[in-house]
């Protein structure tokens, strides 16, 4: 290893691991000791990354408050040092960290809230794509509708949450007192996507979530309706399927249709 490479390794260890060996390689300034000056880099490292977490998880920050959020942030910074040159992606691992590391894993609402915010952030600057219109779908003859398959908009994502995080998200967004956190008997099925420039989410009933997941795998509309019939009210399954499809198209959740 070259001297230059070794110095950089020492400097980085001084910041990440509070190893003071780098102090032997730097100078006091005319007015300040090297410990204080090197401390500027140490302090900036944590504070900059926690600021990035606050920006990406505004509502989790509001939910936890400054002190608890920053404590959590320091734990995340220590456990998952940034490996991407673009700070945009630093917070990507936060939901997984909160779901898997105590004491945060004892409060599943934190991971759910972080997952919802991450999904919305990802939709915000996700890949652009065409937006399917009702006219695009109506161009197909009714007799071949059963063969239609759909392509989700590139920003569309599904997630299942085990807590009432969506209700807490909405309250925090409206600057209202959030409800107490609660585990749900059944997961909430969420669809996230971007409409124009705005990331959105909504809860899906179980049969619509199933239909979305299968449609995203390329299952044709006729089969989707048959699958819906296994859930509830088989006689109206086709109408229900058409209704869900109408909602996806008008919401801007789909990019394409083909046979």
């Amino acid at each position, binding site marked *: 290893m070259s001297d*230059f490479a070794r*110095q950089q390794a020492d*400097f980085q260890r001084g910041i990440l691991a509070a190893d003071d060996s780098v102090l032997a390689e*730097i100078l006091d300034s005319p007015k300040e000791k090297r410990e204080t000056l090197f401390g500027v880099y140490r302090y900036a490292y944590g504070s900059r990354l926690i600021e990035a977490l606050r920006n990406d998880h505004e509502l989790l920050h509001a939910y936890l408050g400054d002190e608890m959020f920053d404590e959590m942030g320091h734990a995340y910074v220590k456990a998952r040092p940034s490996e991407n*040159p673009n700070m945009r992606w630093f917070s990507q691992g936060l939901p997984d960290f909160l779901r898997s590391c105590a004491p945060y894993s004892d409060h599943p609402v934190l991971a759910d809230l972080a997952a919802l915010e991450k999904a919305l952030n990802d939709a915000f600057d996700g890949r652009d794509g065409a937006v399917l219109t009702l006219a695009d779908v109506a161009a197909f003859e009714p007799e071949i509708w059963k063969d239609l398959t759909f392509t989700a908009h590139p920003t569309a994502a599904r997630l299942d949450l085990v807590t009432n995080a969506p209700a807490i998200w909405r309250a925090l967004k409206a600057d209202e007192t959030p409800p107490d956190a609660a585990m749900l008997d059944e997961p909430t099925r969420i669809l996230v996507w971007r409409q124009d420039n705005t990331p959105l989410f909504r809860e899906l009933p179980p049969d619509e979530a199933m239909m979305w997941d299968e449609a995203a795998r390329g299952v044709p509309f006729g089969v989707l309706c048959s699958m819906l019939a296994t859930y509830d009210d088989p006689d109206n399954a086709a109408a229900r399927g058409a209704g869900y499809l109408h909602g996806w198209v008008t919401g801007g959740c789909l990019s394409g249709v083909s046979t």
Partner: protein
Amino acid sequence: MNVASRLPETSRKDGPRQSAKPPFLGFGLGLRHQHYDEILSGNPPIDWFEVISENYMVPGGQPLRTLDNIRARYPVVMHGVSLSIASTAPPNFEYLQALKDLAHRVEPKWVSDHLCWTGVHGKNLHDLLPIPYTQEALDHVVSRVQLVQDFLGRAIVLENVSTYVQFNNSEMTEWEFLSELSRRAGCWLLFDVNNVYVSAFNHGYDPLTFLSGIPADRVVQFHMAGHSHMGTHIIDTHDHPVCEDVWELYAAALKRFGRVSTMIERDDNIPPLDELIVEVNRTRAMAEQVLGPAAR
């Protein structure tokens, strides 16, 4: 990793890239999302914008759409914070490709970053970290700049950073290092007036010595920014208006470097656009005062 195979065929034969000096753009501002709507609805009297490259190295959505709209109305310069040109870690070609793709979309007047490193061993500290001014470091950075310029197909512009520590094995001054780097690698220099002021205070030298040590023909851009004074040292926070001492140093920089594209850079505590336009107008007025009609 086969570095040579990632470079254009011609660049491997040509050696260091020589390029025309970037044009004078006038008096600009760092683009921040807080001002998007006001800029697009009001077309404020700003000559050009500098954008943080990484903010737009994303798949799509509003940031890129907005940048496209602003680019259609104003000249744009790309300014990165993660090139890590002085890192001893292997070059990050994924990052370089994303930077090149963005430059292809934006067609900036130039692409700049900092003379610093941001991490080694797979980690990124997201800070502009200092280097020792040694011959070994210089040789390394020259070769990295040449590689990056060949990959991007353009000469890059490098900025002096604010530093808080100096290494005891430095063999030359920062200005000697920058001058030699620019000469050998063919890159241009972004002279951050505030950073010179900050580093000069922190390390106890005269900022005018730094200024007079930089070759006048290599400087293509000035940054003007604010900082936080801690008494015994200054931290480059970019969250305050430009202070009077830095304005004074700007006047000296104008006298030495002449007509150079200048911009106000505010990264935090972002004020209303009007407040920043006042500072932009002051850079213009000061340039006209120092240089006369040649400033335009």
